[in-house]
């Protein structure tokens, strides 16, 4: 099968470029630690055992600067809708939905995930700058979808 010289160069170039992109993605994931949600716990947040009702939202401090948030999503609100942590805190979010699929995206962070009924979505983020961080539902969930939002308030020390 005859392939023109320039066409061969073009195909090689495209292939090399894509491999370079893939290596960079591998680097950002393995070395920089930018992770995606993976296999999850089903229905119950891992650390929900204890005094807390999983259907209630709560925030608790595990150690100084380390927080855990249990969040429940349903049409059309998050619980809790407001989370306060001091600046520099590392927060792990465990979120589940009790009805249909929702989304959870915190603006200006890498926290973004789907909240699928039956699965517990988990993400960890360290808030290094004080301020108000808006979070929104970014998966369509019915006529009031655009009302579904809340805030992480990162307080200066």
């Amino acid at each position, binding site marked *: 099968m005859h392939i023109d010289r320039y066409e061969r160069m073009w195909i090689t170039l495209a292939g090399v470029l894509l491999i370079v992109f893939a290596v960079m993605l591998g680097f950002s994931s393995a070395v920089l630690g930018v992770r995606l949600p993976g296999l999850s716990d*089903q229905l119950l947040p891992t650390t929900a055992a204890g005094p807390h009702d999983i259907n209630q939202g709560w925030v608790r401090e595990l150690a100084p600067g380390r927080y855990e948030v249990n969040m429940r999503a349903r049409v059309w609100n998050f619980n809790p809708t407001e989370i306060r942590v001091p600046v520099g805190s590392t927060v792990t979010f465990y979120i589940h939905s009790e009805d249909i699929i929702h989304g959870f995206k915190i603006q200006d962070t890498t926290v973004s995930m789907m909240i699928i009924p039956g699965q517990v979505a988990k993400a960890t983020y360290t808030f290094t700058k004080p301020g108000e961080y*808006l979070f929104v539902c970014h998966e369509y969930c019915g006529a009031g979808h655009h009302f579904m939002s809340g805030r992480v308030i990162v307080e200066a020390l």
Partner: protein
Amino acid sequence: MAATMTRVVARGDAYIPPESERKLSLAFIAVGFAHLLVGVLLGLLQGLEHAGIDLYAYVPLIRHYYQGLSIHGVFNVLVFTTCFIGGFLMFVVGRGLERPLETAGLAWATFWLMAVGIVMVDYTLFTNQASVLFTSYAPLQAHPLYYLGLALVVVGTWLMLVITLRTTLAWRRENPGKKLPLIAFAANATLIMWTLASVGIAIEFVGFLIPWSLGWLPGVDPLLTRTLFWLTGHPIVYFWLLPAYISWYFMLPKQAGGKLFSESLARLAFLLFIPLSLPVGFHHQYLDPGVSEGYKAIHAFLTFAVFMPSAMTAFTVLASLEIGGRARGGKGLLGWVTRLPWNDPAVAAQLLAMVLFALGGVSGLINASYNMNLVVHNTLFVPGHFHLTVGSAVALTFMGVSYWLVPYLSGKKLFSPGLAKWQPWLWFVGMLIMSRGMSWMGILGAPRRTALGSAPYFMADWTMPAWMTAIGGLCLTISGIFFFITLFGTLLSKEKATEPQQVPLAEPVEDNGDKLPGWLDRFTPWVTATVIIVLITYGPSIVRMAGEYTVFPGLRPY
């Protein structure tokens, strides 16, 4: 039927499909574009909504943004695309093989089956009983007729493959030892790929959503049904794209006075799409809990791989056009570009579609880039991307094809060539503005599929790109209206064409005759490879999800 089965030959040996088949293609195309018209008008409402102008209260039947958006999505990418592709591919197979379809009767039955399905879908959408958007993620639930209607449309596409394969096999018997004519070969590849791909949505609808919406199942598993959806939901974009590629590879170069630069690579590109289109669906589920990171990474890599046949297409198609531009007197490195027949709206529409598609390809790579997707997932960046692909590469190409195909099939004169001349340019400019607005807004964090104009959290820095989205959308709507006046004016006019239209079919630069390797003229090895790759890349995840099956009842919060 017997009368219409006779082979009609006119003007030398140019084969013209029988009237019954020409009417069939026109019927498909008319139903498709009628739906696109509604979809385009609703798109304008969405753009204006983002800029803070909410007109839904003044529109009959449409209660809110999400109902309008559901219609926009389903009409534009399911009804319009499938109908146009049906009409186009049935024509391409008959014209390519230069023989009647096996059989025109079955093709008409397919049309009516799909028409019944489409009426069911239309009814549920317009009565706000299926405002679940194009993805219809369970446990969000629609009226059973919505799922049933879409299922009939999918069955219709399978019947198209039956017709195509039967016609192709009959041709092979009549022409032993010959390789398949290019356009017929490509039509076969397209329908084979799609039929393999549609297995996911068929299992989702028939096995889960239809019985669930009828109340026969208490609930369904949201993750499993969603995964089955995306098993089909990404390859469907190649089902939309490949018919556009058929025109770009095999027809457009002829219209530009050129020749097909490489026949073997053109065939290889179509064949590569069969195994590479399918094992990529997890790139829509990067942010799903319950799907392993390892399989997401494999799908990310394979999504890059499916970029390769498109990269090959870019080279071959541009080289084929360059032959045309140079034959028309173009000189220098890029002088041939200006010599292409930009005055012909059928050509201009497709050339501009290609330019927009290049941008869409780049933004698509960003979406597919594993963890980079965290920034853009479900933001307006994504519609900013796919309006350049399905909304331009596909839709604008189909419009361009219609400029010669509809006069050819109907024997009528193009109704308003003046409007047709402006239409592709308005679409091009409108799309550049709208897509830029959407992408920008998405990078600033604005979620997609959201009535942002009513959202309490609308941010100040979204205002400028929201206006770009609205203004670009207005340009696109005007362009759309120009097109629909031309199209329906042509269909309804009584004025016959003065000179018969020709089907543009590009000759390969060098006729390989029967020297082509056999694997470039056969589908079975590629189908086998597809099944194996899908089993490896999807099998373990689907088995695990089925083992962890959860039951969630339906909800209709719209």
